[in-house]
């Protein structure tokens, strides 16, 4: 198999960090906060590496669009088994549409046969980049994947839908976005982290790609969600049921 798998990975505020809205409402405090690879992207990397280990793919290339510091997630991905990495360098924060434009350029240059990515980044929770990218490339998409199999030039994707699983069969090349149950990513072991330091990492300046990276959204403000208000005490189960029916209308 000669297929090359491209895995876009994003550097995000670590899952364990309690984010704090900046006092001036301009965004979320990210200064000095621990950053890590988006958890869904770890799953995508794992899946791509498994495909290569099974012989269904030849090479796993990871790519991130971000600042110099985003290199660390590329190193982690390579420690998990990716073969090489591309940093598309920019100091701006890009929207999924812009990220998709960049990824399209990279996918074309790399002649990727499959793009395997996270379904959603846990910072902006857009859940959009994969779908936009698939549309722009004119490729089919297998979103929210919980299982994938590659055979005979097609990829079969089990997708998590409301209340169950749907299976679709796509022609390759295709875009697959990983859901939580797809796999349990391996640890980046210390020996592999050490080896990953020596794997190739290419830096591409975003301007050299000549793609449209303009934003279409402006952030007016970012606020903390309102705290829940303490409700009322009821005296009996019967009264509760009554209120749930007539007042809250949930049952």
């Amino acid at each position, binding site marked *: 198999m000669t297929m090359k798998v491209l895995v876009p990975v994003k550097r995000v505020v*670590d899952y364990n*960090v*309690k984010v*704090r809205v900046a006092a001036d409402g301009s965004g979320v405090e990210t*200064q000095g906060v*621990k950053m890590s690879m988006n958890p869904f992207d770890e799953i995508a990397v794992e899946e791509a590496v498994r495909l290569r280990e099974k012989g269904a793919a030849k090479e796993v290339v990871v790519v991130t669009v971000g600042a110099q510091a985003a290199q660390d997630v590329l190193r982690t991905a390579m420690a998990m088994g990716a073969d090489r990495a591309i940093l598309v360098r920019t100091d701006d924060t890009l929207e999924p549409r812009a990220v998709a434009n960049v990824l399209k350029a990279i996918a074309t240059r790399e002649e990727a046969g499959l793009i395997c990515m996270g379904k959603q980044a846990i910072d902006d929770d857009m859940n959009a980049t994969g779908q936009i990218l698939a549309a722009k490339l004119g490729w089919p998409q297998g979103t929210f994947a919980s299982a994938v199999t590659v055979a005979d030039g097609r990829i079969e994707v089990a997708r998590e839908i409301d209340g169950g699983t749907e299976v679709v069969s796509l022609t390759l090349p295709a875009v697959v976005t990983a859901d939580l149950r797809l796999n349990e990513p391996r*640890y980046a072991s*210390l*020996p592999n982290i050490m080896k990953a330091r020596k794997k190739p990492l290419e830096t591409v300046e975003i301007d050299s790609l000549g793609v449209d990276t303009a934003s279409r959204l402006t952030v007016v403000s970012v606020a903390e969600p309102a705290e829940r208000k303490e409700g009322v005490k009821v005296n009996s189960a019967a009264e509760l049921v009554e209120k749930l029916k007539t007042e809250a209308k949930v049952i």
Partner: protein
Amino acid sequence: MTQIEREEMEFDVVVVGGGPAGLSAAIRLKQLMPDAGVCLIEKGSEIGAHIVSGAVIEPRTLDELLPNWRDLDAPLRTQVTEERMLFLTETRSFAVPYLDRVMPQMANHGNYIVSLGEVCRWLGEQAEALGVEIYPGFSGAELFIENDHVAGVITGDMGIERNGEHGPNFTPGMILRAKQTILTEGARGSLTGHAMKRFGLRKGVEPQTYGLGVKEVWEIPAEKHRPGLVQHSFGWPLDDHTYGGAWLYHFGENLVSFGFVTGLDYANTYLSPFEEMQRTKLHPAFREHFEGGKRLIYGARALSEGGFQSIPRLTFPGGVLAGDSAGFLNVPKIKGTHTAMKSGMIAAEAVAEALEKDRKEAASMTARVQQSWLWSELRDVRNIRPAFAKWGMKLGALYAGIDSMILRGRAPWTLHHPHADNETLRPASVCTKIDYPKPDGKITFDRVSSVFLSSTNHEENQPVHLKLRNESVWQTVNHDVFDSPESRYCPAGVYEQEQTGENAWQLRINAQNCVHCKTCDIKDPTQNIDWCTPEGGGGPNYPVGM
């Protein structure tokens, strides 16, 4: 058990622990031997993730280590401008007059209020720039011993399941071979403990004693913020026989560092260091600082308080100890950063010499320490902490004043630490319960919501890293005699006693909450709690600010 195959990697020096001591050692080594292979491992998920400190630091060692630090954008931004030491009664406070003469250790002019976690992140960048390989998220689990000397460390295995079986992602730890291993694990390091036992490093020295610091970082309204303000207190809420006190520092952008240190030689089993910290905030001398503010971070960590008398032998075949692991903390100053850094630098110098001369033991470290300012600094204050233990807080403070002002640290006698901290607890039957106020959710809080702000987590499916060596001892000693002191001293609510029958109790261990302060390892009356390093990357994730 089957032998696990481990990969190996060879370095000249492996440093265990990325606090100020370990990072200073690594930096100094690379300055002396730019070609040496130096590797540093840190159990926190990143450098600084496990650092808890005040912190007012003396820049003295930084001037020696990186004289151009001011040009390197070092995060020392708030200079001390105003300071006071308060003696508290329940409702009132009295400032100690002529502080700089009575308690010269507490004079802080020229010092900086920092987030030590941030300083460590910065030191980490400096170290990496010099070529040190830093691997956060990996703990040193065992010393790697070969021919009776330490030949490196073994990192922790990953992916072992709760029941002890290897899970699908089992990844064995790795052997990091080194000609010299520098142990800088901070107070009560676990590998340090192994080395001390194996090589008899504590022979002839007094027991190490500890304090537990419980800390919060607040963001307060700008109009109340007085950057550079340093306030310490002693007296209330502790009784005269319990060593400890509070600190409050205004620093950074509207941040306040507040915390409370309790000497772990306390006797009353009903004492809760966490609650002492909480209730201190309600005192009029502190309360106003928090009103209208928001608590951002919570954490806790033990610090060594034995000082000079408790410093162990510093070297052993194949390695050295430095920083808080060796007990280099100036207790009356509650400052251990500059001393940790200095001892790390000296360790590096001794290790470099050993590497050059191909010696197994970096034995020159001891003499180098004794010839440095570090030694005289610690020697001069050696009697102050034991005086508090011996005569209580008020007389102790008086003694401290005399020792510093009149004797200037040159007293011809040395006071001792007669007990290890686990021996000082008194049975519940002779202790008075302490009635701590309920948390108000605005200024005071409970433990679970506090732990939340330490961003602590441990991979759930792993063996419990806190174990009772002998389960039955817990009921007969901890429960029956001391009424479960661990349920009070643990600042993360890891231990809960649970009634399981008429007269049957058991200890529930919520290991996932553990903030790695090491208090249980220190204070358990029969040393029955075994604190092992959990899977790397676990534990608190303190952000910058801590």
